[in-house]
């Protein structure tokens, strides 16, 4: 089977909601699993890793960490060592898609489950991992079913199991449906949860690449990241970099939600501007609603303003204007939304989803939520704004155990920066009423 011509939409080329997702035979007929064949017959693990590094693929889960570099920390065995005594290693797909406003991984898993399975097998072949897990959000019932079907097809066909393609390499893959907490999206909390422990993050170092699942070297990557790997192996790093409009390589699954005409998720070249996403793909704001502000990449990314719409949506450019690209799924907030109410709702979410391990997050977030509520009820004072300011320092990066509370501080800090007047007005209103 020869490879089809490369496409501009490598992640979603096979996704068509008007038909069933491809089964194994159909997927193979469209070039599926060619990357596994190539990896196992033509490329050494180190060559695979070099390709990944050269592709400049960055993690699509939100942090945007270079995938090749992340993988290079996994201890590798020589061919002889591995055949004699393979080191237990794991590859885990983070499919616990819980970021508010995010629904991109679901598109892949429901639209083309084999792409993720292929990504995991080829990734595992690079890492020489022995077992893989897809840690999937419990609510993604359809996706889990489809993945399980895809996996059993692969087991039957020999893409999974012992001695794959006669390479002497064994690999199996399992789907684990999560019991459901936002923090399971944090890779080390995910690993704890997968081990049956409380979903609390782990301290780093040691990084999962060295001591991960059950203390063994482990790679955890987002679904979209893994789904990119087959095509990078097939078509090369230069092709992948060429897909992008900016320096950050590849395509990206962008999403738009909020009061827009056509909310949705699209695969577009990396670096597409927010304005194009909103106005072209999402069809602009609904009639009568004006864009006030937006969260560029999910609930934990700092707010941006309409003036930022022309910024290319990639890790570098969004980072430069004080926010994060996150998952690349924008939540548009219009002028008729109760802004402080929306913010409180968001902070409520983060307070509820705190794992309860470290003090600033566990006890700080509920206080932030209560303070916002107080201000909204017109009972706030300037001391409350002071506390919110203080929280944006003490609950931020470096002070907390993981990135959960800093994520919650992103929208709050930017709200205080861009919309401070709204907080102050509510307080003044209260005072004028009481006086």
């Amino acid at each position, binding site marked *: 089977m020869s490879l089809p011509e490369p496409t501009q939409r490598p992640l979603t080329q096979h996704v068509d909601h008007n038909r069933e997702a491809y089964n194994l035979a159909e997927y193979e007929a469209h070039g599926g699993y060619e990357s596994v064949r190539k990896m196992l017959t033509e490329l050494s693990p180190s060559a695979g890793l070099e390709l990944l590094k050269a592709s400049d693929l960055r993690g699509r889960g939100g942090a945007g960490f270079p995938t090749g570099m992340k993988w290079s920390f996994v201890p590798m065995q020589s061919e002889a060592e591995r055949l004699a005594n393979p080191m237990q290693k794991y590859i885990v797909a983070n499919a616990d898609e819980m970021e508010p406003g995010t629904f991109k991984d679901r598109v892949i898993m429901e639209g083309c489950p084999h792409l993720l399975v292929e990504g995991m097998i080829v990734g595992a072949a690079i890492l020489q991992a022995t077992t893989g897990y897809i840690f999937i959000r419990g609510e993604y019932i359809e996706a889990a079913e489809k993945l399980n079907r895809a996996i059993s097809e692969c087991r039957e066909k020999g893409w999974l199991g012992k001695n794959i393609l006669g390479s002497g390499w064994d690999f199996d893959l399992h789907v684990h449906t999560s019991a459901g907490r936002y923090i399971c999206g944090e890779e080390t909390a995910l690993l704890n949860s997968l081990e049956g422990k409380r979903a609390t993050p782990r301290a780093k170092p040691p990084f999962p690449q060295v001591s991960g699942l059950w203390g063994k070297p482990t790679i955890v990557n987002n679904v979209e990241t893994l789904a990119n790997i087959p095509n990078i192996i097939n078509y090369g790093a230069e092709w992948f970099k060429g897909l992008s409009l900016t320096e950050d390589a590849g395509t990206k699954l962008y999403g738009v939600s909020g009061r827009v005409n056509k909310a949705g998720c699209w695969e577009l070249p990396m670096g597409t501007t927010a304005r194009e996403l909103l106005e072209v793909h999402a069809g602009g704001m609904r009639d009568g609603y004006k864009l006030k502000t937006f969260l560029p990449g999910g609930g934990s990314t700092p707010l941006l303003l309409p003036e930022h719409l022309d910024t290319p949506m990639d890790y570098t450019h969004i980072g430069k204007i004080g926010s994060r690209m996150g998952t690349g799924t924008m939540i548009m907030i219009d002028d008729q939304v109760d802004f402080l109410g929306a913010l409180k709702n968001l902070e409520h979410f983060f*307070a509820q989803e705190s794992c309860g*391990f*470290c*003090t600033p997050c566990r006890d*700080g977030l509920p206080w932030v939520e209560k303070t916002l509520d107080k201000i909204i009820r017109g009972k706030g004072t300037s001391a409350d704004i002071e506390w919110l300011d203080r929280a944006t320092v003490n609950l931020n990066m470096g002070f*907390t*155990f993981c990135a959960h509370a800093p994520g919650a501080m992103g929208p709050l800090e930017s709200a205080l920066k861009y919309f401070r007047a709204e907080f102050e007005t509510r307080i003044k209103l209260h005072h004028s009423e009481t006086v």
Partner: protein
Amino acid sequence: MAKLTVDDQDYDVADGNNLLHACLSIGLDLPYFCWHPCMGSVGACRQCAVKQYADENDERGRVVMACMTPASDGARISINDKQAKDFRAGVIELLMTNHPHDCPVCEEGGECHLQDMTEMSGHTTRTYDEQKRTHNNQYLGPLINHEMNRCISCYRCVRYYKDYAGGRDLDAMGAHHHVYFGRHTDGVLESPFAGNLVEVCPTGVFTDKTFSAHYSRKWDLQTSPSVCQHCAAGCNITPGERYGTLKRITNRYNADVNGYFLCDRGRFGYGFVNSDDRVTQPLARETINHADNTNSDTAIQCSTENSLTRLTQALKDPATIAIGSPRASLESNFALQSAVGESRFYRGIAPSEDTTINTLLKFQQSSCVNSASQRTIESCDAVLILGEDLTHTSPRTALSLRQTVRQRARELADEARIPFWQDAAVRELAQQEKSPLFIINTHKGDLDDIAENTYFNSPQKIARLGFAIAEQLRDKSGALSASLTPEEKEMCSTIVNALSQAKRPLIIAGASLLNEDVLNSALDVIKSLHINREEVIQAHLVVPEVNSIGLAMLTQSSAERSLSEALKQIESGAAKRLVVLENDLYQRVNPEKLDAALEKLDEIIVIDHVWHNGMAKADLIIPAASFAEGDGTVVSSEGRAQRFFATFPVNADNSSANDSWQWVNQALDNRWKNFDAIVNACAESNDLLAPIADLAPPADYRQHGLKVPRMSHRYSGRTALSANINVSEVKQPADPQTALGFTMEGSNVNAPGPLRNTAWAPGWNSNQSIHKFQDEVGGPLTGGSSGLCLFGSAESNELEFGVPSEQTSNADFSAIPFYHIFGSDELSNFAAPIAERSPQAYLALNPLDAAQLDLTQGDGATLRFENLQQVFSLTVVIRPELIRGLVGLPIGLGGLTRHLLEHSPLLEKNLAWQRVPSGRDQNVIATDQSIGLSEGLVP
């Protein structure tokens, strides 16, 4: 050494630790909650934030958690940096948002780490005016209170209970700011080390229920350095007293022995001191009629003078013999021995125990063995336990073994370059990997969960396996090994490999099975391992009572001085009078035989502090001081001689109790001038005991001209304590015997280790203050650890051990002892909460044996013994691992005593038995049931 710069001051700190450990070790104050010297760092509370600078030129720095950051050479940090300080105050502010303002009614108040840290971090004004989260509290049993509203979620309790102590029924539940620390439902905390939660919890969530029942503030307690009396582990304790009542026991840090932790028997078993069964006045029986088993009611109070006269007469009578006690101090035993003469002083130990302890003592003095302290035990990397259910025979040692098996984790962490103090990371890395621990015993025990392999069989069979291991260690092709079953052979070679390949192997055995062959086989393993490895072998040999070793040393382990010999003397009529020291002989020998012997005596004098059967036939009962009111020296299993000091004076208004040695001394017309004199005399009398003279500074030791005070400088109401009785101020009792005073005057700040009663430092009111008295956090006390090891003369070992034959006895059954941390110890059973925790008396049987007798779990069985009149009706517990023909009897429960094991048991079904309705069936989960079975609790 690493160079560390803190706020522009240079310090030298030990390599490989974290910044918090380093800062505390050099005496700096830095607040923390989740970190614990024994449990390492997890970075949960974020309280120990400091500013770290990259190098000399870095002026911005960044805030890091001191506990999670290595104190690497050249590190530059600041504790006083404003950003770090503000953050630390912010963390306390957050912790306090949900903490109730109940300090005035909280048991932790005044010794609360949270109070101290709040003060230290400068959070003084509350701005949070929202509602607090609240929790329901749980019933956790008779020992521990639960007040979850006070919880600051530091996770120390679960990390201690689950990770450190191996408990299974306490966990963190729920999430976000509703995290709950408790059981799945109300119920007794199963771990016998649960009491340490009281000290591990930085605030008042887990508090001592027995203390709450007669509460006083920490600063109002009179305390002394003391040693736990409830087994031979030698744990150091701090008893606390007020109003003449012993109110509680807390851990007293000893780096070599108990470290930071005690077992629950030691912590909560103090009730006998306050018991209504205490003997407080001399009691005499007017008519002497031993045949008539008269009870205490007919004994009448007699004056101190009269009782002393009678004691003097008795001690002078050449027809008097005396029986000492393994639960009395060396000084009391020595005084009595000196009074009647060595040849007429006998060990008050059950004959079956006596021989094993004597063998053990002889062996401990050979050059092939080093008696391992608990700290040494934790550093070993392969362990064989032969014939001990350690959790119940030496509980604190069992807790140490749970750390020993983590040596493997330490190795893995070293390989992966993860510092061992990165607790969560190391546990994650090591998963289930453990250093090898093998348990060979007659029945399942509570350490089996961490054992690599276990083997259960009859004492004879386990001894043969032990000897086979020894044989293989010396010479691979032994005849004994050939006689093993394939399963035994495999076990044998696994153990031999593990022991010979380990860096530091450890053998644990002891006297608990009351079987000489089993002990001998273990000693032979040590000997052979010594030959195999050509080095001194670490061993911990367990004896049953607080001073078993001391008594054996005092009497030179001589066979002529055993209790059986004493009985022979009485039966033959050679002895006419008997003085018994702090001993219930009915626990030691066949009561029928004892009754018969005692009838022959003209006079029986018993010196003891609590009422027991052994007093029923006494003509004179002399009230002794308990460990809480007396001074003395005891020798632990390890051979460590340690001094305990009276916590409070006997109240002369309502008690005439006195140290046993004092009674004897007065009867001898004050042969010894004072306590130091008798200690020195005892030390001089016996080479083995010579070091005891140096255990603690003498009575004339002074600091700045003052004694070391037993009361804190904040002790309140001293002059008004007895104002309800007499308004005039009572003179403070003097303590002429020791360097401690019953006083507030003076300071214990620079006290030597053996005199250190409690730890307090400015700003550190809780037990966490102990690090102010350690050179290095977790290391020995600045003033020196308490205790000196009496073992270790280097004579060559001449002991030879005979292998028991394979022949079986004709009897259907033989009895073996089961021990229970709650129930098998005589004195702690006086404490109601301990009694509540002890199981009902039972007998344990193999299922097939039970079936043959038509017995099922919970049925009743009648138990008799050959040549004995005694009859027991007991509930039947089925133990599948128990080999056929063995009957497990819980020692100390329902009148089942050690001496019974010398007789062959006879069993039959008790048809009149009525099953006890089970109150435990509600809310039982698997763990309750499995634990219950292993304790023989579930009928």
